[in-house]
């Protein structure tokens, strides 16, 4: 046997290491309590990213939220933000009214795919076309989670829902709407990105997108939109732990990740 090569340094583990970075606060201060959504749901993750982004940008004390109708609607009870719980689909219009009379505030909407793409598609498109300085957060899981897993306008082809039991068939149910692409195509949008919260990389990139979107609002670049693919294992009829995998195999194949549009040009 040869002599041992150079001795590897042994890290002293008796005291905390220097230069540690806390990656997340276990109890973020803008979240007042536990959420009530299902195990494996992606929406609370997105909420947390949004709340942290407001704090990171130092804009909490002028932030106003407008929340639509879906499972995430219950977030109005746990987010420490001045909030309007609005009618289904109408959040971008309500946000328009708020922002126009309080131009110094930071106004965001929180909407699901049923809210934004079914009930309120024209609201988000018209608000984008008007270049309203608001930030819309779309929590897209391709189903109506709140009502138990029916098809929405973003359900991907082949996806099983309670109203497409054999999977979404274009011949019967038509095709999904890529709303972010529509919004990005309008001159009045400033920043559009699509992320997901299915794995740590997705979470990190999505938070960056949310901050960029809010910054775009602060810079007055028109409507910003971050579409976040959020797991809904209950509505997808898969085990809680399978959510990210299913999402990767289904929704992520139809909706590619990345920044679709940013001030000065897309990536």
């Amino acid at each position, binding site marked *: 046997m040869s002599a041992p090569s150079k001795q590897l340094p042994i890290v002293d583990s008796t005291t905390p290491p220097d230069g540690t970075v806390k990656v997340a606060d276990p109890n973020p*201060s*803008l979240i*007042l*309590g536990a959420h009530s959504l299902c195990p494996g749901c992606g929406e609370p993750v997105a909420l947390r990213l949004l709340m942290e982004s*407001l*704090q990171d940008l130092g804009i*909490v*004390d*002028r*932030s*106003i939220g*407008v929340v639509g109708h879906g499972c995430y609607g219950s977030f*109005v*009870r*746990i*987010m*420490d*933000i*001045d*909030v*309007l*719980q*609005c*009618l289904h689909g*109408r959040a971008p*219009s*309500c*946000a*328009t*009214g*708020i922002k*126009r*009379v*309080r131009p110094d*505030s*930071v106004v965001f909407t929180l909407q699901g795919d049923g809210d934004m793409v079914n009930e309120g598609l*024209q*609201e988000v498109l*018209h608000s984008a076309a*008007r270049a309203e300085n608001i930030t819309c957060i779309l929590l897209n899981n391709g189903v109506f989670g709140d009502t138990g897993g029916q098809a929405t306008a973003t359900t991907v082809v082949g996806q099983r829902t309670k109203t497409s039991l054999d999977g979404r068939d274009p011949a019967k149910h038509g095709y999904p709407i890529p709303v972010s692409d529509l919004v990005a195509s309008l001159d009045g949008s400033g920043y559009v990105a699509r992320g997901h919260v299915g794995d740590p990389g997705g979470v990190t990139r999505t938070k960056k997108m949310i901050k960029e979107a809010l910054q775009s609002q602060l810079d007055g670049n028109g409507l910003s939109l971050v579409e976040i693919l959020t797991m809904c294992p209950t509505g997808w009829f898969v085990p809680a732990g399978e959510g990210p995998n299913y999402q990767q195999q289904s929704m992520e194949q139809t909706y590619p990740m990345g920044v679709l549009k940013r001030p000065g040009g897309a990536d």
Partner: protein
Amino acid sequence: MSEELELLEGTAAIAKSAIAAGMTFFAGYPMSPFTGLLESLSAMMPEAGGVCINAESEIEGVNMTLGAGAAGARAGTGSCGQGIALMQEAIAEAALNETPFVVFNLARGASDYFQCTKGGGWNDYRTITLAPKSVHEAVEHTQLAFHLADKYRAPAIVYGDPLMARTTVGINIKKLDFGDLPQKDWALDGSMSGTGKSRQVWTWAMGKVTDPGPEMDAHWRYIAEKFNTIDGIEQRHEELWCDDADTIVVAWGTGALFAEKAVSELRKAGHKVGIFRPITLWPFPGPALERVAEGKRVLVFEANAGQCLEDVYQWVPRRRVTFIGRVSVDHTGMNFGDIMDAPVVRQLILEHLDNQAATAGANQ
């Protein structure tokens, strides 16, 4: 002349009055004869430091207005009955989540009485509805509507028609004072975000987990009680020549203007007729009508199939009530037909007075 008059079309006068009342946000969708209000505000609001949005739909317009109202601004929207039908969901929502704003129904006629007073939205709510009879009164009601909306944190409707929207008068518009109002400490401005006491505007009133709200059952009982209170306090009406009258004509809005003219002439001819005009269609001034109409005949005149009539029935026994109105629309569908004309109204009233006299004679 004591005051400088400005010649303004009805819609422009209402626009100026709304701005005088401090309205800083308006969103509407064109529909005649409401359109004039949207055009006037588009021209006037920027100069007044406010915002007027030519909304892409009535639904978006009313929801923008709800947002602006929730943020504490005096906000307005409007249309004709057809467009306001699309706004019903948001009007009900605002009544339930206590967001004040004013809806201008500059309608195509008098057939939106039910829509204004009974509503078409969800849940237990009412909408304060003011029915001016002239441009001058519409100017006053515009400011009163903003006051009442803020006072009660509820949407309020000003209900006019083509004869009001398109009539031009010399007028001097000033800010009117209806008294003090509470601070809008509930309004969303972001300042409470992150303090642990952030605000919430929500129909279900469940509050935050750290500071629970009353929740639906208690909140909706409170809303119902609030509308009961409004009903008790805010009824407005006008009586003319009722004391010696044996017959009372009930008429509202511009219809009352024509009825007044007809009745004044009939009185000169010796007929004992009076006028009762509901000014608030909701709350309906029922107790006053009951008192005024005690033992008298009541003729209800309105250019529709009989809508206010149903409210009259609540307060006057049916056997003493006769409906003398009818549906009356011109060939464009935008204006009143032939009924809105003093000689026609006079004849409608007279026919009934004659019948009564004949009946009375036969009974003797």
